[in-house]
């Protein structure tokens, strides 16, 4: 089960990225634009641009393992590791979630001191439509806040 604090961070505003790898153990990266933790606190659906989904979906069909990194502008960060469940195009409701995500990520990052001329084009420049919603079952959660405890398993 994903700890409550990690659920809060996933729901944002946090910067997020997903990692996968193929059968030859070659990794792939994609930025994640918004995510939703299911009510069971064990499954997560996250959103990636369709244009960047081909490689990670191929990897997920091959080995099914996924890592989702989530980090606040304050450096508080976590990583979830789990197993692929499903994928489909994002719907209208999810695109609204993504738009809210971008707006809150920008305002929070700016509020904690990131310069507007950097964070505004960075955050609002994430392509999100058309998007793919990818669902996975989280098996482990790790602390990733920089420091000697980074990597510690917390769930």
């Amino acid at each position, binding site marked *: 089960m994903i700890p409550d604090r990690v659920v809060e961070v996933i729901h944002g505003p946090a*910067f997020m*990225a*997903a*990692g*996968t*790898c193929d*059968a030859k*153990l*070659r*990794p*792939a*990266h*994609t*930025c994640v634009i918004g995510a939703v933790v299911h009510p069971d606190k064990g499954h997560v659906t996250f959103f990636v*641009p*369709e*244009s*960047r989904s081909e490689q990670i979906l191929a990897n997920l069909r091959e*080995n099914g*393992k*996924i*890592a*989702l*990194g989530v*980090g606040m502008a304050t*450096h508080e*960060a976590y*990583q979830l*590791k789990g197993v692929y469940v499903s994928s489909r195009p994002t719907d209208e409701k999810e695109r609204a979630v993504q738009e809210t995500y971008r707006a809150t990520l*920008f305002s929070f990052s700016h509020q904690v001191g990131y310069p507007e001329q*950097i964070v*505004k*084009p*960075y955050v*609002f*420049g*994430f*392509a999100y439509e058309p998007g793919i919603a990818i669902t996975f079952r989280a098996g482990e959660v*790790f602390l*990733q806040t*920089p*420091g*000697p405890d*980074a*990597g510690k398993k917390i769930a």
Partner: protein
Amino acid sequence: MGMLPDEIKPAMQGVIPAHVVTCSLDGTPNVSVISQVYYVDSDHVALSYQFFNKTTKNIRENPHAVVWLISPETFESWDLEIEYDHSETSGPVFEAMDMQIEAIASMTGMKGIFKLKAADIYRVKSARKAVGERIPLFQIKELRGAA
């Protein structure tokens, strides 16, 4: 001509953190944020090794990694496919990275937490713009009318 074009250099200034994805021998990926990707030459980059973490462990057993970078000038993102070569704990690359990490730590309120143990040197196998991931600056509606 090497793998890294000159236009990628601004993305290596540490203004916007980069991501690195590695993979363990059992096929489990790991994604983490890195404060610095250092340009060594047109075919090599160095990543900072600050704590012994999953990235370090994975790289020692499977040398393949992917680094994601973004330019603070054009806001285009890049994917680098890299392969671990060796680590340096002294010398010009280590010294330069150490100084840059100190500066990044000061700017981001992480002084005393970021501490370079080694400069991990990687060979760059490919460098590609992450097509489709970024909206071109002129198309970002939130920037229209901005200074």
